[in-house]
């Protein structure tokens, strides 16, 4: 009896030896990282890789052939005037919206920092826009800016200003307006926490030294806020370049194609017109375009 059991034990320990040898073959930290790598692989790398593969085919949602055609889709996308036009539109939107949000956000954060009364409720109210679904916000503004029904045009009319918010000249700026309304609070949030975590004594020293508001702002506030500003910039540039919801529920890309953002035409090409491979190609071109400023900004962040 004991002979058998000791034999079994010996076998068991040898088996265990194999397994633990396998585990030991790789550094422990690799094993720790494995779950995350698996998750990333399944939910990020695989879809990305498959999308890229699709972009090299003629795949349509109604004709799911995976015939390889090389970079033909990319050629189509880049020579098609619509894509480059859409790129311009999207970039204009991003630059305008983010700049306004940055400046407005900073001004508001500075003001909020000095506020003494009803601080919490003001902040709670101010931050609500960013918690709303963009589609809901888009729909609300569609009617808010409506000439007949909307509060804004009617309020402006009191001062004698006739503004058509969805004319070909104004439509994209109306999209900017909506984005600013919804996302400036995000900037305020970031900057306010940046401002409130700054040490107070250099500012008192500046006060004693007699520095004007602008001198203090330039030499103290801005440099100290720079890391936060860059983070805010990166996040907003990435997010706003995905302009879609407002266009989808309000303008359908119009009037006259003036609000056809990249995300919108990608959706249209891939889902409405079923040309998924072409949409994939668009997405990757877009990725490359975005990569440039993002890498630049991250480099800046590293230096500060």
């Amino acid at each position: 009896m004991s002979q058998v059991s000791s034999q079994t034990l010996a076998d068991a320990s040898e088996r265990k030896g194999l397994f633990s040898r396998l585990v030991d073959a790789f550094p422990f930290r690799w094993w720790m990282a494995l779950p995350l790598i698996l998750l990333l692989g399944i939910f990020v790398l695989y879809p990305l890789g498959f999308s890229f593969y699709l972009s090299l085919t003629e795949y349509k949602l109604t004709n799911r052939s995976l015939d390889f055609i090389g970079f033909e889709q990319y050629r189509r996308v880049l020579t098609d005037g619509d894509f480059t036009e859409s790129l311009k539109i999207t970039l204009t939107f991003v630059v305008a919206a983010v700049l306004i949000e940055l400046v407005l956000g900073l001004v508001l954060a500075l003001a909020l920092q000095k506020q003494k009364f009803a601080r919490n409720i003001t902040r709670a109210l101010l931050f609500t826009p960013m918690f709303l679904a963009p589609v809901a916000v888009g729909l609300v503004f569609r009617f808010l800016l409506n000439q007949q029904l909307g509060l804004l045009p009617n309020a402006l009319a009191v001062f004698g200003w006739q503004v058509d918010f969805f004319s070909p000249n104004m439509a994209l700026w109306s999209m900017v307006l909506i984005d600013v309304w919804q996302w400036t609070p995000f900037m305020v949030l970031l900057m306010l926490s940046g401002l409130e975590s700054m040490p107070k004594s250099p500012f008192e020293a500046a006060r004693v030294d007699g520095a004007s508001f602008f001198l203090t702002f330039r030499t103290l506030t801005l440099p100290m806020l720079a890391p936060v500003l860059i983070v805010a910039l990166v996040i907003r540039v990435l997010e706003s370049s995905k302009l879609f919801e407002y266009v989808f529920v309000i303008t359908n890309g119009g009037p006259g194609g003036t609000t056809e953002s990249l995300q919108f035409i990608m959706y249209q090409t891939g889902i409405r017109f079923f040309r998924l491979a072409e949409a994939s190609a668009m997405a990757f071109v877009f990725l490359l375009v975005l990569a440039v400023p993002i890498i630049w900004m991250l480099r800046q962040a590293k230096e500060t």
Partner: protein
Amino acid sequence: MASITFDNVVKNYGTFQAIRNVSFEIPDGEFAVIVGPSGSGKTTMLRSIGGLESISSGRILIGDRDVTNVAPKHRDIAFVFQNYALYAHLTVRANIGFPLKARKTPKAEIAERVEDVARRAGLEKLLDRKPAELSGGQQQRVAIARALVRQPSVFLFDEPMSNLDAQLRLDLRHEVLELQQSLGVTSVWVTHDQEEAMAMGDRILVVNHGIVEQNASPENLYSDPVNSYVAGAIGSPRMNMIQGHSANQVLTADGQNYPLFPGCPDGNIVAGIRPEDIHPVESGREGSFQAKVQLVELLGARAIVSLAVGDRRLNAVFSRRELGDIKELDTISVSMAKDRLLFFKPDNGERIRLAG
């Protein structure tokens, strides 16, 4: 004229009274030290002089000017902060020059004055560095230089030595004192360290819970404290306080008798004697009593000797010579120097002055 006057100043934070009706005057050119424990209001007083805090009532005057409602930059003061408060993104040169730039001084003048002050503060070689590249002591010098460059009427120092090590503290102390002497600018220095206060001040304001207990020269504070708080605050180790009943020139406390002398007050009193005023004597000498040596802490030239008299502990400081070969657990005779005994009322600590 840049004297500093507090006239019935009160400062409340909500219901908390930080400064409770304080009045004093610091004459022009003096180096005044405000000393007290944390939360005593000393920093609040300093910041009120500088205008960084507003006051709830009363007046503050610098020279003849009522500056109660004047902004800091118009009070002609310079402030040195506890944590230096340097401008992290500017070079040392720019830091020092900042106050001048804020007043729109011409560039050439700024450069000249900065060089001058930097030399004075020993910073000529560090002008192009950033604060993060400097040691604590160097940073503090930059802060002082920045204050100097303004040539203000008043210097205000908010515990600037707290973050420095002991030797650095001593060195900087000397430099600041020499500087102040040569410039003759009225200065107010806040500290919690009574030794620092005693060493630096022309006058010292002992602050406790928002009031100034005593405003006097170091000598007066030491030998003629106005109450037991001041007596205990000044001098290290602390003055020994013996509370008991005095009759017939003998103080009885906890069953022990301490010999007093003619003219001492009778009744319930607190007798105070500084450790350095307890001396070992031959046994049986008039006015001596027995004590058992509990602990001897040798500090080089002197020793702190912890004595047990009955259940009471008394601290004494003997010189090396006095210590002789007294060891722990010895029973010795000691006496208290007559002319150094101080008496206080037991209820409020007020000093009982002897006639004559």
